[in-house]
């Protein structure tokens, strides 16, 4: 099984071409602006480094959220366009779960993304990526009960957090047989309504 992995959910762009659970070529870069103009050239570059072309992949693993709204749209648009054009299977992956592939010594792993104003997008996983608490948008302090037994993983300098070291092999092994999503139906998992929608809901 050959696959393309795309993660544009944070300022840390990750694109990889894999065969089974081996990374054949990958590209990682911290990009704070213009990820949109980097993504397609990066994919093109990666397929120049491997012996097969993008037409030969079987699956696309797309990290569809939570995370930067713009980043998610960039990645999801690329993934659904490739999947639609080349009739490829596409499997959405949680950005938090991918962060939770980081090796730690505690029983729990708590990946978190700073959502500002004291809130985070976070989930709680165990070492086999079983979900202890599903991904959600919540006040940071509500994580405290899990923090005693877990390691906080984040790219956003949250207090006492550790930077993720993603293990793509672990992710692919777990999700390779997941149900696929039709390309048209693939959307970002923002975990949060827009402000306009929230304000409207409050009024109603």
């Amino acid at each position, binding site marked *: 099984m050959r696959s393309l992995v795309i993660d544009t959910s944070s300022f840390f762009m990750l694109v990889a071409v894999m065969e089974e659970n081996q990374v054949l070529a990958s590209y990682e870069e911290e990009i704070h602006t*213009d990820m*949109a*103009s*980097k*993504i*397609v*050239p990066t*994919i*093109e570059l990666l397929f120049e480094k491997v012996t097969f072309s*993008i037409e030969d992949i079987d699956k696309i693993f797309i990290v569809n959220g939570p995370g930067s*709204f*713009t980043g998610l*749209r*960039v990645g*999801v*648009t*690329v993934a*659904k*366009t*490739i999947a*639609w*054009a*080349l009739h490829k299977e596409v499997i959405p992956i949680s950005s938090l779960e991918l962060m939770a592939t980081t090796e730690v010594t505690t029983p729990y792993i708590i990946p978190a993304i700073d959502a500002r104003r004291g809130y985070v997008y976070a989930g709680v996983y165990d070492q086999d990526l079983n979900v202890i608490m599903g991904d959600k948008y919540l006040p940071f302090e509500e994580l405290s009960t899990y923090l005693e037994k877990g390691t906080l993983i984040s790219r956003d300098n949250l207090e006492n957090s550790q930077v993720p070291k993603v293990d793509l092999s672990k992710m692919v092994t777990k999700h390779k047989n997941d149900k696929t999503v039709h*390309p*048209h139906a693939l*959307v*970002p998992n*923002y975990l949060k309504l*827009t*402000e*306009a*929608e929230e304000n*409207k809901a409050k009024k109603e």
Partner: protein
Amino acid sequence: MNDVLILGIESSCDETSVSIIKNGKEEIATVVLSQMDTHASYGGVVPEIASRMHVENITMVVEECLTKANMTMEDITAIAVTYGPGLIGSLLVGVVAASTLAYIYHKPLVPVHHIAGHIYANNLEKQMEFPLIALVVSGGHTDLIYMKDNYSFEKIGGTLDDAVGEAYDKVARVADIPYPGGPLVDKLSYEGKDVYPLPLPLDDDTYHFSFSGLKSAVINLVHNEEQRGHTVNKADLACSFQSRVVEILTKKTMRALKEYHVKHLIVAGGVAANSGLRSRLKELCKQEGVELTVPALKYCTDNAAMIATAGYFAYQLGRRSGYDLKAKATDILH
């Protein structure tokens, strides 16, 4: 000569649209998915919601357009996409989808300026003949442009503050006329009389426009009437406002045609759909022996047919982009 088929993608605001145009003039198929109903409930376009809806719909709209055209991507010569100006989050979806398609299918990628699209919408009506003057009137633009040839845009005047479409929307809001304000003000104006003494804005010998003074005059009028315990007659207000707008737009446009010795006028942008403006220009152009082209109503609002049409001429001029095409919220028409 082989036919050139351009697939155009437009997502700069609240319409997801894809179109296939043959040789820059013949429409093969166009799909426009408007989000207007969604945004109407918020009283205007919400950028984040617009971006989200573009992502949901983009591949579906591409597929629907190809199906409608009974074509596959292999039949397409090049892909044209609006790179700007517009809402950045919305633009990104179209630009990324277009770059991806160009990469996958090994097609040339042609960047198109949104306003070039509005201008070239006229070529779907009638082949554009140069030199010409283009009056660009929309929610973001009020420009007079002299074109001596394809893709030669010499701006001779523009708005110093609000765009004309923006002024329509603001006036509609003040007068409590629902969203989208522009078309409704236009419609209402026929039911009213030009009785309110609103000023003719920036009536000078430049080709510039200014609508903030006129807008303020409307706001003051509404407030003053309210303080006197009266309510403004919406139809009369719409008529008075539209009369001033149409008068100043047509006055400066007709003068530009004369001074530049140009016999062709084209109108572009969302406000080109305004019936008051269309009929007055028709009258004046007939008087002056100027040939007037106005896009069909469906090509006045945002659509990808105009992008594919402008894309055809850009393609013929050798304009190309790499897969690293950047979306731009603002950019000079060039």
